[in-house]
């Protein structure tokens, strides 16, 4: 088999795998999964899930496109435009993904099937809503058998959501360190002591962690198995749904969550800047299909791009800003808000570093917006302007970027408590650094401010 063709994350489940052939994304269903795959269709489960927008639809593909000899079917799933990961989701995004997984499982049980895995990586955001991706995750339901994916569901969803809700929302980033979900003993140890008084969290996290630790040292003994009835399984799914729905987090009090209400922009300047950004986006030829808005905050400027029909990924370091964006624009099918620390972006992860793509690896894109961002990278994080320019050239062909000079009150605030060691942080220095990678198409002062907005186009091919 061509290892290059099979996607790096698609190797665990012997039921099949996802691969690319001649640039087309396909999923091979292996012979061992033939009967279960038929049941998925014949039971009406596939239709029910697709009609409810719970599962990604697929079409049958030619059997000639199969990659290995043990193929039973080949299917062509609908394409997800941008892949994102649980450690990049805000609290509500992870919560919605958890509830979707439980809804999928409940629907599966009603059709005589059950989820055999419950990884958060089986969920992606598509047209603004979470959707289940793994068509081969269903197995025939056997009455009397507990849910095989219960542990995985708790590690991938319950543990991070409890930590984000009851300890600190930034603990969502822990998922980046644990590819199969946060170990329950760790989550139990660092969660708030009061969570032990919550019956549902007490059972599904704390007692669960305790029994896992105890069972690790026990040898299996052949004894008659107890029955786990269908009602017990439905009660488990119901209890987990109720636990997840009860977890809350309010996005406030972080550095950026109230940025726009705490800025020195007048409403006239803000309106002028929005018009300029819109004009820049409309200037780009051909019209961009996808834009990355870096430092997007609550997505106010990203919404200009989506308003023009452009799919937009609104990246921001602050989980509160991303949460606000997600909550306020659930109906915007073109917007995807994600958490990203540009000073330490998501790396390649997993087996062979091929399971999860890095931030840069998911680019380059047609256009990048970097509004009110450069001073945070160059001054707060000491990144030389040349390096900022080189980074931008790696991820986008077109660049809409705002230069915020030292005279600006926001930059003065950054410099108030530190030595100014940035002699080249000037408009001329900025233009010189970016001219090494980009051609400046236009530049204009933002009305009522000392800031300048640039439209640039990369010179040559992306700098990989």
């Amino acid at each position: 088999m061509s290892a290059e063709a099979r996607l790096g994350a698609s190797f665990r489940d012997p039921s099949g795998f996802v691969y690319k052939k001649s640039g087309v994304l396909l999923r091979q269903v292996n012979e061992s999964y033939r009967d279960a795959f038929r049941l998925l269709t014949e039971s009406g489960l596939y239709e029910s899930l697709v009609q409810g927008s719970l599962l990604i639809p697929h079409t049958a593909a030619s059997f000639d496109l199969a990659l290995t000899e043990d193929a039973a079917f080949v299917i062509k799933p609908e394409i997800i435009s941008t892949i994102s990961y649980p450690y990049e989701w805000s609290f509500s995004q992870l919560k919605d993904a958890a509830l979707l997984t439980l809804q999928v499982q409940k629907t599966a049980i009603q059709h005589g099937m059950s989820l055999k895995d419950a990884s958060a990586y089986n969920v992606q955001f598509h047209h603004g809503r979470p959707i289940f991706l793994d068509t081969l995750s269903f197995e025939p339901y056997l009455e009397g058998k507990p849910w095989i994916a219960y542990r995985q569901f708790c590690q991938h969803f319950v543990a991070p959501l409890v930590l984000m809700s009851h300890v600190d929302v930034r603990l969502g980033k822990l998922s980046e360190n644990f590819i199969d979900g946060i170990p329950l003993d760790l989550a139990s140890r660092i969660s708030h002591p009061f969570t032990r008084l919550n019956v549902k969290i007490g059972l599904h996290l704390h007692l669960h962690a305790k029994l896992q630790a105890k069972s690790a040292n026990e040898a299996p003994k052949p004894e008659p198995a107890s029955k786990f009835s269908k009602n017990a399984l439905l009660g488990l799914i119901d209890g987990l749904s109720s636990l997840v729905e009860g977890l809350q987090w309010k996005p406030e009090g972080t550095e950026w969550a109230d940025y726009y209400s705490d800025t020195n922009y007048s409403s006239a300047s803000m309106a002028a800047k929005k018009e300029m950004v819109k004009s820049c986006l409309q200037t780009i030829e051909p019209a961009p299909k996808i834009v990355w808005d870096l430092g997007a905050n609550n997505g106010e400027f990203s919404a200009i791009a989506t308003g023009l029909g452009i799919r937009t990924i609104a990246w921001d370091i602050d989980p509160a800003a991303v949460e606000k964006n997600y909550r306020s624009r659930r109906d915007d099918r073109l917007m995807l808000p994600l958490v990203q620390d540009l000073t330490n972006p998501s790396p390649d992860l997993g087996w062979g570093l091929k399971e999860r793509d890095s931030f840069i690896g998911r680019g380059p894109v047609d256009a990048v917006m970097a509004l009110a961002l450069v001073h945070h990278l160059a001054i707060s994080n000491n990144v030389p302007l040349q390096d900022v320019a080189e980074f931008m050239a790696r991820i986008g062909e077109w660049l809409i970027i705002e230069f915020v000079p030292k005279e600006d009150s926001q930059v003065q605030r950054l410099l108030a408590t530190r030595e100014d060691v940035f002699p080249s942080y000037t408009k001329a220095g900025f233009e010189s650094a970016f001219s090494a990678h980009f051609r400046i198409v236009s530049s204009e002062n933002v009305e009522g401010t000392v800031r300048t907005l640039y439209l640039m186009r990369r010179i040559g091919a992306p700098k990989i």
Partner: protein
Amino acid sequence: MKNFDRFVSLGLACASLMAISRSANAYIDAGSGSYLLQVLLAGLLAGAYVAKSAILNMKAVIVRKLHPTKRDDSVTHVG
């Protein structure tokens, strides 16, 4: 405490057996502790689900009687 340990050991044995008798499609480790917890909670989970479903069904019947034209979507059918 000793009785609890004995109960846990028995549960673990059941869970281990169930873990062994997985279907052919299973490929992840269910974790015997996770199986055990489900086995231990089975009665409680089933009881809670049946009770909740009964309450919702009863509520639906009352709503139908009081408002014959109104449809209650919260009805749950016990499997």
